[in-house]
C-alpha cells in the first residue's frame, strides 16, 4: 500500500477548464432559478387537464340537483311501492306458514286436493310410475 500511495496519491490526473470554479456558482444559481420557474409551470400544467374535468363534474352536479329532482322523486315512489309489495308478500307467507304448522291431511284429503289442482294426464302419468 505504501508503494501504491507514493506512486499514485496526491496526483489528480483530471483537470477542469480555466476559471471553471469561479463561474460555477453563478451558473448553479441560474439553473436553480430556471428549475423554480419550471416547477411553477409544471404545477399549472399538472392542474390544467383537471380543471376541465372539475367543470364537467360541477355541470353534471348542477343538472342532477336542479333539473332532475322530479324524475328522481317519482323513481323513489316506485321504489317505495315495490318495497311495500315485497313486505306484504313476506307477511302473507309468514301467515301461511303459521297455518301450515298444524295442518295434518289424511290420504283422501290429499287425493281430493290433487284431483282439483292436477289434470288427468298428470294423474295417469303418476299411476304408471
Amino acid at each position, binding site marked *: *500500500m505504501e*508503494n*501504491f500511495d507514493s*506512486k*499514485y*496519491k496526491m*496526483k*489528480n*490526473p*483530471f*483537470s*477542469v*477548464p480555466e476559471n*471553471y*470554479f469561479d463561474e*460555477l*456558482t453563478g*451558473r*448553479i*444559481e441560474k*439553473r*436553480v432559478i430556471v*428549475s423554480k420557474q419550471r416547477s411553477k409551470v409544471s404545477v399549472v400544467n399538472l392542474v390544467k387537464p383537471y380543471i376541465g374535468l372539475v367543470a364537467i363534474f360541477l355541470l353534471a352536479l348542477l343538472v342532477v340537483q336542479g333539473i332532475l329532482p322530479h324524475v328522481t322523486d317519482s323513481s323513489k315512489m316506485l321504489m317505495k311501492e315495490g318495497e311495500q309489495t315485497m313486505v306484504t308478500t313476506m307477511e302473507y307467507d309468514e301467515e301461511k306458514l303459521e297455518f301450515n304448522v298444524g295442518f295434518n291431511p289424511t290420504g283422501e284429503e290429499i287425493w281430493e286436493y290433487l284431483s282439483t289442482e292436477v289434470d288427468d294426464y298428470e294423474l295417469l302419468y303418476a299411476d304408471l310410475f
Partner: protein
Amino acid sequence: MEDKEIIELFHLKGEKEKAFRLLVNRYKERLYWHIRKIVLNHEDTDDILQNVFVKIWQGLSEFRYEAKLFTWMYRIATNEAINFLNEKKRKVFGNSGEITTLLENTLESDVYFNGDSIQQELQRAILHLSERQRLIFNMKYFDDMSYEDIAEVLEVAIGTLKATYHNAVKKIEEYLKIADPSF
C-alpha cells in the same frame, strides 16, 4: 460559518439565496471531484453537479439533520451520478454492455484528463472494480473520508465498508502488477 448556521440562515425569510450561495461556494469543488471520479467526463460532471445543487435547493427546507449536511449532499451527488451512468449505458449499449467499457471509452476521449501512463493505469484498474468498490475506494482513498461518513453516504455497515475497501485495494494492486511488473 458552520453548516448548521447556514441551514438556519436558509430558513430565515429573505435569506434563502444568500445561505444557498454560501453552501454552493463551500461544497462545489468537493462535490465536483466526487462526481467527476464516478463519471470521469468533465461536461457530464458539470451537468450532474448543477442538477445536484437544484435537488439540494429543493430538499434543503426539509433537511432535518438526521445525517450530516455534507454526507446528505454526497448521497444526492452519488445517486445522481450513478443514475446518469446507468442511463448513459442504456442509451449507448441498450440492455447489454458494461459500465466499465463505457467509462474506459470516456477516459480515453476526455480532453481534461492529463494523467501520465501510470495514472491512466490506476484509473483503468479502478474501472475494473464493482460499482460499490469503486465508490468506496474513491471516497476513502482520494477524498480521505472516514468510514463513518462513507457509511452515512452509502447507508452501508462500517464492517462491510472496511472489507469492501480492503478487497478493492487488493484487486487494484493485482491489476497493476499485471500491467506494470515493476510495481
